[in-house]
């Protein structure tokens, strides 16, 4: 039995290494995917965190609040501001944005200081009235509301990016407004202007936000595009063995080798075990190669380095289980497909669908609620959750066991379906 299995594994390895197209699909394609997608996501990440957004700033206001607003926007740090003349028309702004001069334009309206001041005085009066302090004011109440700060966006900007910009501007606006309200309140109470030192202390003494990524091992590594993408695309690569393995099973059926094997005194299960062991080794090598690229090549390319979890045994076990599931799925496709084209088509499309549903392309928490149940049927989801438990959360094998159990369940189900298919086709 062991001699037969050894001979079959040797045969499978020989065939595998002579299938150049299959090797490209299994190794080169996922490596390219991992590099390209990590680079793209990292670039977006850097735009949001380190790079600045080219922005046109048109300050039509001549007062203090307009200047304060400019300072506040500058302080946000995410804009690369280019001042434009106050009398520039909206059409000219649009033209400059079409010419890729900027992707955002901010217009501070002409009477911004005056209107904001009136609004602040009104707010201060209301506040004092609430405290039971009635103060006569010689100011005439202006019922006109403050004209909004207008922001133009280039259509290439994604929704999430626009929201970030909007959040930053709202924060700036709030700061300017608060300053004016505070100044009005101080003046109403003391009839003198708010001293600069006190103004700075009150306005600029904001509490800091301490961002801490949660982790099970207590590390404070900030998750980056590499840490997200490498596990995801490793899983994708493993499941893409369907192109080589699924085709190999179909080819064996079509070229008559199956017929010959059936007439020999050996059970076809030996061939199945051999294929599983051979391709399990392939998926393991895939993971090793992609992880190595993340560790050693990415930093040379200016991308963040992949941090390998402390629980190496856990990573190995999760990798083997993910690989086994991927191999089982590929064999099932091969057993049921009637042609190589069918195996390749169904295999590739189903992997992309399962990757999408499983949260590899879009985070699972961002999916519609109806998909929250469907995604649990995707083995790629459980693979990803297991890897994320180790790579992002710094967990150990026991921490991801609840992800491994469903993954093993799905794998066993796939194996049973495969055996049923082989039995139905009189192959075992």
């Amino acid at each position, binding site marked *: 039995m062991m001699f*037969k299995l050894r001979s079959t594994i040797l*045969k499978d390895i*020989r065939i595998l290494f002579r*299938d150049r197209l299959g090797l490209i699909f299994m190794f080169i394609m996922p490596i390219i995917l991992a590099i390209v997608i990590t680079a793209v996501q990292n670039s977006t990440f850097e735009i949001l965190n380190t790079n600045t957004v080219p922005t046109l700033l048109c300050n039509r206001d001549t007062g203090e609040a307009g200047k304060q607003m400019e300072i506040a926007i500058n302080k946000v740090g995410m804009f690369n501001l280019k001042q434009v003349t106050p009398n520039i028309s909206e059409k000219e702004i649009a033209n400059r944005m079409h010419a890729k001069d900027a992707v955002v334009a901010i217009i501070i309206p002409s009477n911004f200081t005056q209107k904001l001041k009136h609004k602040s005085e009104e707010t201060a009066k209301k506040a004092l009235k609430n405290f039971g302090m009635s103060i006569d004011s010689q100011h005439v109440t202006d019922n006109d509301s403050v004209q909004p700060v207008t922001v133009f966006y280039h259509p290439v900007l994604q929704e999430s990016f626009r929201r970030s910009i909007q959040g930053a501007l709202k924060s700036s606006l709030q700061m300017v407004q608060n300053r004016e309200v505070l100044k009005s309140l101080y003046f109403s109470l003391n009839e003198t202007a708010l001293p600069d030192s006190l103004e700075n202390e009150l306005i600029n003494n904001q509490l800091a936000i301490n961002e801490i990524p949660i982790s099970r091992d207590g590390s404070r590594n900030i998750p980056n595009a590499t840490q997200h993408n490498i596990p995801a695309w490793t899983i994708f690569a493993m499941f893409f063995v369907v192109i080589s393995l699924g085709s190999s099973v179909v080819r064996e059926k079509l*070229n*008559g080798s199956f017929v010959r*094997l*059936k007439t020999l*005194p050996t059970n076809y299960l030996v061939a199945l075990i051999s294929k599983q062991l051979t391709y399990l080794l392939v998926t393991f090598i895939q993971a090793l190669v992609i992880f190595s690229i993340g560790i050693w090549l990415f930093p040379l390319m200016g991308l963040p380095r992949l941090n390998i979890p402390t629980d190496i045994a856990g990573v190995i076990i999760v990798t083997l289980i993910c690989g086994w599931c991927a191999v089982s799925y590929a064999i099932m496709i091969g057993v049921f497909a009637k042609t190589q084209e069918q195996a390749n088509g169904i295999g590739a499309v189903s992997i992309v669908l399962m990757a999408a549903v499983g949260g590899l392309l879009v985070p699972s928490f961002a999916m519609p609620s109806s998909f929250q149940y469907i995604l649990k049927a995707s083995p790629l989801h459980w693979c990803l959750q297991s890897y994320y438990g180790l790579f992002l959360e710094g967990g150990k094998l026991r921490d991801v066991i609840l992800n491994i159990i469903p993954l093993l369940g799905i794998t066993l189900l796939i194996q049973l379906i495969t055996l049923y298919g082989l039995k139905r086709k009189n192959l075992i």
Partner: protein
Amino acid sequence: MSNAAVSINHLGFTYPGQSSSCFSNLSLTVQEGERFGLFGPNGAGKTTLMHCITGLLSYQQGSIKLLGYEIAQHKKSVNKLFGYVPQDFSFYQELSPAENLAFFGAWAGLQKNEIKNKTTELLEVLGLADVRNKRVEQFSGGMKRRVNLAIGVMHNPRVLFLDEPTVGVDVHTRHAIINYLIKLNEEGGTTLIYTSHQLAEAEELCNKVALIDDGKIIAHDTLQQLVADYKEEGLEGLFINLTGKSFRDS
């Protein structure tokens, strides 16, 4: 008295999903040591019958015994007793002849040394020794046929099934294959069960023939006896006499 290599009794077989049966009540015996030829028009049931005998298809009625073993009950255990050379190239084109023989030899139950010796012998006899390490996908049709045959005889089977083993090969390869098969039968005592449309070749090889048409055995005897009975000059005349001249493509 010789023993039956294959004994078929009242065989009934219908392909799943089909209403009409392929065989009903078919009986046939092939004795050990015979070079038996099974002939018939396209679609007559030759390959299907071979698949039933070799266990590739499960029959619904009757019995098939191979060297005394009921096929339906002892599929895997009797598989080492026979060899099968399918009509299609049933091996791995990505591998060399030596690699194919090593793999199929292991599956046939041979040990490492037996595989090594038999591979050398077969590749020599079939003229493939010089290309033993070349990939089969680079071979001509004739060379591939010889590889197909070598795999079938690798484990010294007592009964060898050959489904059109010389289709699409040149005269030299045909002669080499037929001569090798005769030698295998005469020296090793291997029973040959052979189908082909090459009737002249069949006359050279077979000492017993059966004609099958529409799932029934319509003639079964030595070639000389059948030719004499039907007053024909050879197998081709006998074939047309018994099966008619119309096309049988369905």
